[in-house]
């Protein structure tokens, strides 16, 4: 069987180092965590930094190669032949349609193992995985540095960093794999890492519940991808990226849609798309750095990566683009609306993450891959910054997360205030911050490609985003400090029943001074928050042009020019900000802030307060039937069928034993008779045999 290899095959030890170093770090910290104790943090961060630095020298190799596709044959010894010496045996494949499809995977390739004929695992570093790998290790490094300050004094300090390193390894596996099976392995492992980290405070029931929920929903997604792989094997006979993409033209539209649909189930679960998003807000039970790294910057964007990676599939399937774009748009809007109703600072950020990922999915779904990927990059910066800033605030307020009990922090925590302001402006899309460029590109990308409804949703969501993010900013940092006020006067009656994770995400509840280790990473992230968007005008599209060749282009017949769209979006955003200002930060609002917050708490519309009843619906549709099935099995199947079989077996055995026992009479004469019967049979056999 001929295999299409992605990128130039060769030996890249630095790539393997960047992939395996976090795993080594995780194992070492797991094994020796109790010994190294407070050194665990610096060690973990350093390993992540090493992985980041190891990727940098590969930049030229991974991006310099143009659109080439390589075929090589594997009948002789599988794909074990690694290293540059094997390059000579490859022949360039330039035949027709395959070349265009496969050219999306130009990059460098490191063959690693082959564990079945025609099935191999290798590392692929092309433009797309390069961006992701740099973000994972780079932001992973910054967040681990931050965590050294944030987690000081925590139990299991080293275990935390072991988990983070394990997560980085899993995520690197996901993005560096050169085939869907390897991707699924990484996909499952990041889910596992997320499970570990959400449930990091495993003595807290709510955290355990949240981690379990996240894990189960993520496994639903894993199964989607698993079925996609089955379909690929059935249709193409391979799960390598190159093999699948080279054969896209041969797939029937139905099969293509089925594969895309199954893959998208995985994306929806991992990237918190409606209706599989319910785990993300609950995941805020984890420590704040975890929320920043896993549930904002990297893991939840794996769905965006997968769709961008599978661009040849989506390019060929109009229905799949429609499906993904629509779900992304709905998620963006739903996340923004739910963000309106939250009081927990981390949950607000969680819903905004969901909303922004909705944007990304919408972008890559409709074919604006470069815009979606840029939004991933900018979002990774500003959302990580927002979360880390929220962590600074929570840290300083002895683990208070309810913004109603904050207020007036502008003067108390000036750094947090300015950082938060910068992040909020970026997420709202105020020029020239990073979010402006990427969000604008995504929103206009939908219009360009003929999805006016999605465009409308995008614009509306931008306005709502501006409103609730400024609400967060105003309520937290403006007015007077409300931390000493009786919660009931703000309408907070039963923290548990209000659906807000008021329980602090820390296990030692005292105010901490903000250490330089927490401020420095945020300062570095600010650079990205301000400047990352400029990549859009610095040749971002050209950079990704070979990666997304064949993507649907804009129709041209657009009634609104790009500049007009930008002005429209900005205007809507400004309106959102203005409403937020009037409601929460105008002098009149600040005077009666407590009363206003109480009224808003009490009069929160029921659908928003209950997160559109998604949890209730999932509970009724899946959890309850599953539990009923379990009860049925427990009351009928197990006692009657399974236990019954065991019981019947024992009864039959006992009966046979009784039967055998009845021969053991102890009577010599009975034994003699038995003996004679046997002897008589023996003799009769020969006697009659002689006659015959």
């Amino acid at each position, binding site marked *: 069987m001929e295999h299409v290899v992605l990128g130039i095959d060769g030996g890249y030890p630095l790539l393997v180092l960047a992939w395996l170093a976090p795993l080594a770090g995780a194992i070492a910290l797991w094994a020796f965590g109790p010994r190294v104790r407070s050194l665990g943090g610096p060690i973990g961060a350093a390993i992540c930094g090493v992985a980041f630095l190891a990727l940098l020298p590969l930049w030229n190799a991974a991006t310099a190669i143009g659109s080439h596709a390589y075929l090589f044959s594997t009948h002789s010894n599988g794909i074990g032949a690694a290293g540059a010496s094997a390059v000579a045996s490859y022949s360039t494949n330039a035949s027709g349609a395959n070349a265009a499809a496969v050219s999306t995977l130009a990059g460098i390739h490191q063959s690693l193992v082959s564990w079945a004929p025609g099935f191999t695992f290798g590392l692929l570093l092309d433009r797309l995985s390069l961006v992701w790998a740099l973000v994972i290790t780079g932001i992973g490094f910054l967040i681990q540095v931050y965590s050294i300050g944030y987690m000081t004094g925590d139990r299991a300090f080293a275990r935390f960093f072991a988990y983070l390193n394990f997560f980085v390894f899993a995520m690197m596996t996901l993005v560096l794999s050169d085939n869907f099976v390897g991707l699924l392995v990484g996909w499952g492992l990041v889910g596992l890492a997320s499970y570990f980290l959400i449930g990091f405070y495993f003595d807290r029931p709510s955290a355990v519940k949240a981690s379990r929920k996240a894990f189960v929903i993520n496994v639903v997604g894993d199964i989607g991808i698993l079925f996609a792989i089955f379909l690929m094997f059935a249709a193409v006979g391979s799960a390598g990226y190159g093999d699948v993409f080279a054969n896209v033209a041969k797939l029937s539209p139905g099969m293509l849609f089925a594969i895309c649909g199954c893959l998208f189930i995985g994306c929806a679960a991992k990237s918190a798309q409606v209706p599989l998003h319910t785990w993300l807000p609950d995941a805020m039970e984890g420590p704040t750095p975890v929320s920043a790294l896993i549930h904002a910057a990297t893991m939840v964007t794996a769905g965006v990566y997968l769709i961008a990676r599978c661009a040849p599939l989506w390019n060929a399937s109009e229905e799949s683009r429609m499906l993904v774009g629509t779900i992304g748009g709905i998620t963006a809007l739903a996340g923004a609306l739910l963000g309106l109703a939250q009081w927990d600072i981390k949950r607000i950020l969680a819903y905004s993450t969901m909303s922004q990922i909705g944007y990304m999915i919408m972008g890559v779904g409709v074919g604006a891959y470069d815009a979606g990927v840029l939004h991933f990059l900018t979002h990774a910066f500003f959302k990580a910054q927002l979360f880390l800033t929220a962590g600074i605030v929570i840290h300083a307020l002895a683990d208070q997360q309810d913004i109603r009990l904050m207020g007036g922090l502008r003067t108390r925590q000036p750094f947090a205030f300015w950082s938060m302001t910068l992040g909020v402006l970026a997420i709202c899309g105020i020029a020239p911050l990073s979010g402006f460029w990427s969000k604008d590109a995504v929103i206009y990308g939908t219009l360009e490609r003929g999805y006016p409804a999605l465009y409308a949703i995008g614009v509306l969501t931008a306005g709502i985003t501006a409103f609730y993010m400024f609400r967060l900013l105003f309520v937290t940092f403006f007015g007077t400090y409300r931390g000493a006020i009786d919660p009931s006067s703000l309408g907070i009656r039963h923290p548990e029943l209000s659906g807000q994770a008021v329980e602090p995400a820390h296990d030692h509840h005292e105010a901490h001074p903000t250490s330089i280790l927490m401020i420095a990473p945020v300062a570095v992230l600010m650079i990205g928050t301000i400047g990352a968007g400029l990549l859009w005008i610095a040749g971002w599209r050209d950079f990704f042009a070979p990666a997304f060749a064949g993507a649907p282009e804009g129709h041209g017949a657009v009634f609104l020019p790009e500049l007009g769209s930008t002005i429209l979006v900005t205007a809507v955003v400004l309106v959102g900000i203005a409403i937020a200002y009037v409601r929460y930060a105008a002098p009149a609002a600040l005077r009666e802030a407590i009363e206003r917050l109480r009224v808003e708490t009490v009069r929160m519309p029921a659908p928003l307060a209950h997160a559109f009843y998604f949890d209730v619906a999932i509970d009724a549709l899946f959890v309850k039937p599953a539990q009923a099935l379990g009860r049925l099995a427990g009351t009928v199947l197990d006692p009657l069928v399974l236990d019954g079989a065991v019981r019947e077996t024992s009864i039959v055995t006992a009966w046979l034993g009784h039967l055998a026992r009845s021969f053991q009479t*102890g*009577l010599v004469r009975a034994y003699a008779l038995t003996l004679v019967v046997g002897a008589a049979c023996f003799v009769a056999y020969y006697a009659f045999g002689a006659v015959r």
Partner: protein
Amino acid sequence: MLVGPEQYIALSAVMFSLGVAGVILRRNPLIMLMSIELMFNAANLALVTFARAWANNVGHIFAFLVITVAAAEAAIGLAIVVVVFRKTATVDVDEIALLKG
């Protein structure tokens, strides 16, 4: 009526069957042992008959061996009866069902 080996063998079979019946039907260990002697002798009769029929005296040697074994068996069997009688004061084999499962 001519008498050939067939009649001797048939007589041997009848005697053997009577011995079997004695072992199975009687509960007195002494009579059971005597029935076993009957079976030995039926076997001996068959052996001697075949020896005569084929003019081969190995049959006699075997019969001699059987007589010896019968003597040994009678001695051991009677010793067991004596021991059992001493222990249980009964000579009903149904009473000494020590191997009952």
